[in-house]
């Protein structure tokens, strides 16, 4: 007899009368072969429609292919900004997170306030803050150091990263059992030694998945730099659109190309994060 789905709701088949079946675990959302068929179908419908662009003007697909090298350079710049912001933000965030856990009264309070402010303010507002209030050049020991806008944008993105990483560090350290601290203390480790040699190495595993989530978010947020005038992928996309005569039917393919680039970059990171989470799951 075929095992009926207990949720089938077939009249007469009371769930209690059905043989016991282990509940199937539905997996999280991910791409399956079915999506490839859907995409292929869409492409079959969309490509002929694009190709009808006429002889005089390039068809949208040709426009995208023609400008792809330039747009991909822009995308590489986005990735570079996100990597730098992540590096700066992680270092600062670990410092801030440890400050929140420090002994004493003033330092943890201050660190907590800073974390809350930088976490709760919209990223775009922080970006505006840095772009408008940091001077375009600074003078260090009599040497003028120019600060181009992309440097300021990187700094602006590293602020929210810092706050989020600080929260991750704090949460991970809090999740280590107290007995670890006590055991280290009884072995005569100082507080600093305990932190760096015993607690943090255990935390690294727990911190990796949320840290990668933050990276994915910051990689997607770098396009906001175009709003404050940094030349990156979206700025280039708008310029390409203007260069091709500003035809309205070009918007969808050009922005679609940007969506595709980010999707191809972020989706593997997302899957990898989920795989790590499953692997490190402590039960």
């Amino acid at each position: 007899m075929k095992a009926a789905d207990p949720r089938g709701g077939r009249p007469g088949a009371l769930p209690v009368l059905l043989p016991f079946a282990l509940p199937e675990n539905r997996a999280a959302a991910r791409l399956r072969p079915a999506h490839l068929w859907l995409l292929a179908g869409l492409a079959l419908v969309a490509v002929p429609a694009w190709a009808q662009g006429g002889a005089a003007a390039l068809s949208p697909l040709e426009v995208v292919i023609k400008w792809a090298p330039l747009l991909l350079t822009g995308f590489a710049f986005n990735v570079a900004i996100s990597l730098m912001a992540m590096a700066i933000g992680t270092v600062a965030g670990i410092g801030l997170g440890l400050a929140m856990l420090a002994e004493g009264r003033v330092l943890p309070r201050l660190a907590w306030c800073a974390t809350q402010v930088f976490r709760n303010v919209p990223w775009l507002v922080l970006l505006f803050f840095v772009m408008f209030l940091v001077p375009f050049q600074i003078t260090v020991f009599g040497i003028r150091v120019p600060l181009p806008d992309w440097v300021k944008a990187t700094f602006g993105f590293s602020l929210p990263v810092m706050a989020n990483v600080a929260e991750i560090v704090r949460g991970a350290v809090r999740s280590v059992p107290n007995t670890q601290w006590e055991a280290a203390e009884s072995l005569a480790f100082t507080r600093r030694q305990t932190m760096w040699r015993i607690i943090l190495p255990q935390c690294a595993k727990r911190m990796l998945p949320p840290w990668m989530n933050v990276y994915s978010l910051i990689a997607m947020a770098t396009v906001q730099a175009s709003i404050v005038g940094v030349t990156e992928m979206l700025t280039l996309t708008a310029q390409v659109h203007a260069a091709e005569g500003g035809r309205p039917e070009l918007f969808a393919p050009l922005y679609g190309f940007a969506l595709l680039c980010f999707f191809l970059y972020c989706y593997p990171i997302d899957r990898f994060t989920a795989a790590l989470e499953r692997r490190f799951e402590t039960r």
Partner: protein
Amino acid sequence: MIATIQAWFQQLYETTGFNFTVFYDPYDWDRYVAGLRMTLLLGISTILASLVIGAVGALLQSGPSRVLRALVNGFVVVFRNTPPLVQIFFFYFGLGTLLPDIRTADGLRAPILNNVQWAIISLSLFAGAFNVEIFRSGIEAVPRTTVEAAEALGYTRFKAYRYVVLPLALRVCLPALNNNLINLLKTTTLAYAIAVPETLYAVKQIWSESQNVLEMMLVLLATYAVLVGVLVWIMHRWERALRIPGYGR
């Protein structure tokens, strides 16, 4: 009362140079309040719409139809892994120009959906994709025996979802939902990019006309701190009101 506040800020400007125009210039104040109202409109409408999208998506995702499941999965995966700003541009510029125009009463051509409506649509879809995943994790936490008990009592699949599974799942996933809705409120600033006159847009206009970037930046930070704070407070009240007796502390 209002006159004294205005006089105080006017005096602050004259004595210290801190030019908080919003608090004494009625024109700037009106623009600021209009921006705040637009942010609230965006925030509330997208929160409600994304909750509906999340609940419906989670229902379909657990449903029997393979095609619907694949569609919901694809939607979630795509919207979670692409930048919200590019989504907004794609919807507003890409799809907005493809839709046919309509004629207004005086014969002018106008797009079917204006920028505010497109912002609401794309932001709701963006947050809704996250909500589907959040609700799904909550639904999975509901014991299977509970669903079976509901079925034994004669609930249909939809009724069991509506009256038994969803209320329990909602309580389980509330902390994650809080985070996402707060994130959504912060993401509404992206509507600035398609010229929706929300708080950031209004404040930017004020500071470029009155030359008081620092002061308006402080007002902006304070505004969002208060908005997020109020949302956090509401969600915590809600969380406490919905608490399942016997769980947690």
